[in-house]
């Protein structure tokens, strides 16, 4: 499990958290649960945007967070590609420049080329010079994905990636991401409350509630054999929501 992502977080105050899981390279894990279940907080803790009280986060052999050892790498030093729920694109920069900002490890002369290639990979060729306000919601989401991949991240993190687009666009984006995923070597963590996202994109599933993992396992196992009535109800709610 050296090459993958391992997460263990524990705290009582503010937002209660008690989670532990690991994701192998190339594997996708979905965190599912109602709002306030701690799934986004967990994702932010992995990205380095949230500092949990106790625990350990390691990715691809590097320790990002270890409360016992006093290690807490800031977000900019963690190779984590994060797609924000609202995308958080830089509004004054073009699609190309948004991606180029995240390419700061790439030599200056090849950045433009690399960013153009990334945008082509998410089917945005021809829209490089548009600013976010000139792009549709789906197009913005693809820029956000391209930007998250630009750092050549050791883990890809997606926070409700389709919540801001309509049903049709959502289906299309989901299909594209599933395709894209096949070539991605890193572990992926997906926060969602939509079971369709889970079945289409994830290999494994964690059901969270009030900061705790109620059940985890392969998607089909958890979906067909929920461990308790509470989990069945939560999954049901998620299905209704979608």
């Amino acid at each position, binding site marked *: 499990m050296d090459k993958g992502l391992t997460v263990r977080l524990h705290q009582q105050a503010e937002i209660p958290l008690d989670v532990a899981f690991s994701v192998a390279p190339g594997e996708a894990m979905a965190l599912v649960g109602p709002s306030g279940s701690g799934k986004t907080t967990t994702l932010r803790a992995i*990205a*380095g*945007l949230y500092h949990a009280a106790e625990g350990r986060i390691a990715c691809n052999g590097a320790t990002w967070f270890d409360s016992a050892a006093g290690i807490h790498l*800031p*977000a*900019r*030093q963690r190779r*984590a*590609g*994060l797609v*924000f729920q*609202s995308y*958080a*694109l*830089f*509004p*004054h920069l073009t699609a190309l420049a948004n991606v180029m*900002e*995240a390419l*700061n*490890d790439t030599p200056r002369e090849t950045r433009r080329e690399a960013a153009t290639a990334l945008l082509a990979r998410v089917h945005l060729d021809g829209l490089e010079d548009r*600013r976010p*306000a000139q792009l549709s919601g789906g197009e913005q989401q693809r820029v956000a994905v391209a*930007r*998250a991949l*630009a*750092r050549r991240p050791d883990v890809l993190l997606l926070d409700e990636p389709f919540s801001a687009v309509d049903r049709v666009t959502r289906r299309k984006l989901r299909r594209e991401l599933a395709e894209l995923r096949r070539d991605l070597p890193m572990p992926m963590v997906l926060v969602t409350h939509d079971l369709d996202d889970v079945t289409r994109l994830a290999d494994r599933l964690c059901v969270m509630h009030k900061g705790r993992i109620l059940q985890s396992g392969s998607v089909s196992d958890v979906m067909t054999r929920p461990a308790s009535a509470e989990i069945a109800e939560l999954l049901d709610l998620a299905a209704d929501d979608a």
Partner: protein
Amino acid sequence: MDWEAFWLTIRLGGLTVLLLIPAAILTGRWLAATRMRGRAIVEAGLALPLVLPPTVVGFYLMIAFGSGAWFGQMFERLFGQTLVFTFEGLLLASLIVNIPFAVQPIQRAFEAVGPELREAAASCGLSRWRTLWRIELPLAWPGILTGTVLTFAHTLGEFGVVLMVGGSIPGETRTIAIAIYDRVQAFDEAAAGQMAAVLLLVSLATIAASYMLTQRIGRRYG
């Protein structure tokens, strides 16, 4: 028309802007994001010159600059001259009374950028300085422009503090606002009227230019 006073005032305004705005950018940025406990007190302190009468600010500055106070003594020892009734003293006073005019619009602008873009920048691996330079400054630009214009225009118009710490020494501390006052007392209403009109036009032009620029920026990111 007292051109000496006019250029002295422009110089005072220009230097105030050049020295104060970079500091206001750092302060405004810090205040916009900090969750420090004493933040409200710091903000209140910085806003004080806005609500205090110029005579109160002038009085304290006069005391602090004087050769009786440690600050005045220190300055005298360092630079071999006193602060009161000198251009340097006037500049220092101008920097202090303009703090809220510079910091507040800039702080509001950084607050409007919001924490999410800062997080996005961090997660893209951008350093603090690069985030400030590439993301926050371009987005906060209208606020910085407003702070700059307010500071400059306010320096042109400041009277009470200048009168108290500057006196009215031609070529040293006589700003255009003071020159107008002096000309009125010398029954020279023609010159006073001329200078008042020039001051009015310069202030109007400065503010109009900033509005035009802000509008253009607004269209660009819209």
